[in-house]
């Protein structure tokens, strides 16, 4: 995918609209999913996706190929989201119903109901993380970027990404322990 993306990107840089169309077809689902999880509704996510690609075409001439096209695109999407958040200045946590409705679209559906409920609970806790950690989790886990790619997309060092992920996992583990303790007390 990376090689084909680079070839398409080179074609788009030379002004080939067909190549650019293929690039859009290749990445728009991932970018929309990323922005949808962060923004909280379809309309804003679609709008942010359009802005992301518009900025991509504007900046295509300055693309240095220091990172993969996918990473560079996620970096643009991240900045578009930050600009949007700065204007709105209000968080958009996803509702339980939304996570429930998304289960069908999971690439690897959960085997049991308990697993699905636990996963939804984890996703809600992720939304409770602070912005930096939440976006790091989104890019690394939800978008399947490597540590280095996440670091490049966020414009931080890889060690910072590791630190944020460790903090996020600690937080999620603590919350799960608390939940298990509450469940046991309820059973007793």
């Amino acid at each position, binding site marked *: 995918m990376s090689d084909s993306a680079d070839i398409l990107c080179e074609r788009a840089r030379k002004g080939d609209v067909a190549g650019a169309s293929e690039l*859009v077809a290749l990445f728009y689902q991932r970018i929309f999913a990323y922005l949808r999880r962060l923004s909280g509704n379809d309309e804003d996510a*679609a709008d942010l996706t*359009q802005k992301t690609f518009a900025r991509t075409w504007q900046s295509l001439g300055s693309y240095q190929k220091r990172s993969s096209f996918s990473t560079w695109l996620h970096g643009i999407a991240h900045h578009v989201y930050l600009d949007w958040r700065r204007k709105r200045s209000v968080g958009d946590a996803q509702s339980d119903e939304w996570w429930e409705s998304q289960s069908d679209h999971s690439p690897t559906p959960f085997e049991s109901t308990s697993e699905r409920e636990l996963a939804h609970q984890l996703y809600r806790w992720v939304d409770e993380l602070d912005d930096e950690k939440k976006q790091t989790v989104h890019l690394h886990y939800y978008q399947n970027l490597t540590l280095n790619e996440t670091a490049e997309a966020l414009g931080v060092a890889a060690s910072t990404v590791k630190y944020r992920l460790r903090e996020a996992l600690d937080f999620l583990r603590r919350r799960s322990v608390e939940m298990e303790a509450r469940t046991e007390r309820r059973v007793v």
Partner: protein
Amino acid sequence: MKDTIIEEFLFKAPRPLAPAGLLKELQAEIALPSAKPAAKTREWQNSLRRWFPALAFGVLMLSCAVMIAVQAGWNTDLKVRNDVLRATTADLPKLREQHAALEQAQANQDELAQLRKDNDELHQLQKEVAQLRNLPAQIQQLQNDNKRLATAPVPNANASSSAQFFDDAQAQAERIQCVNNLKQIGLAIRVWEGDNNDKYPTSILLASHELSTTKVLVCPSDTARQPFATLGFERFQENMTSYKFTIQPDDANLINCILARCPIHHNYLLADGSVQQVNPEKYHEVQKDGRWYLENIQTGAPFR
């Protein structure tokens, strides 16, 4: 819950699907910038950026090489100059000897020129001495000539003629001086008239302050009255003047009327201020209406 399980769940996070028409919208909004010029510029900039360290190093090395070449040239030039100076220094004692000889020759030449000058002066002095030696003989010759001329007889006729000439000149000078005196008297009278209602003075002494000295009232040929010429107006009296005054107050209106006359030279001061030298053999004085006029003896016509 273990971290691995948490991570597994996170990796399995559901992916929301994009709306149906979003892909077409995104593809329709593709606006690619004109890539070629920018790419060319960027390519040129990139190659410049890529080769800049090598270029900078090359330029630095070239500059160093040029500097080394220039300094080598200076070094060679200095060596050549040093050799020339050393060669020059080797001839220095010889040059000093030549210089000393040249100075000696110059001094000899100056001395020779001074001697020539002294010799010329000596010759000049010898000539002057010879001339001075001849002077006593010339003086003696002149003295002899002088004695011979002094002892030679003088003709009498020449002496008489010379004395007569000087006497005539003296008489002529005195006559002219007399005319000048009368002119000054006439001028004084006219000035006095201007200050006194157009009337002439009855006596010349009334207008004395218009005269510079009593000398003008004495004719130079009147030897008897010459002592009065040196008196001041304080002591001068009317009978001390040489001239005979016939002046009257109303004479200012009469042109030919006689104001004063010199009995020695027959010079007449008339009422119009003029002085006339009259030949007594041709004119004589006549009185008309109490005033005196000049008249031709033969024709009786008034003087003009």
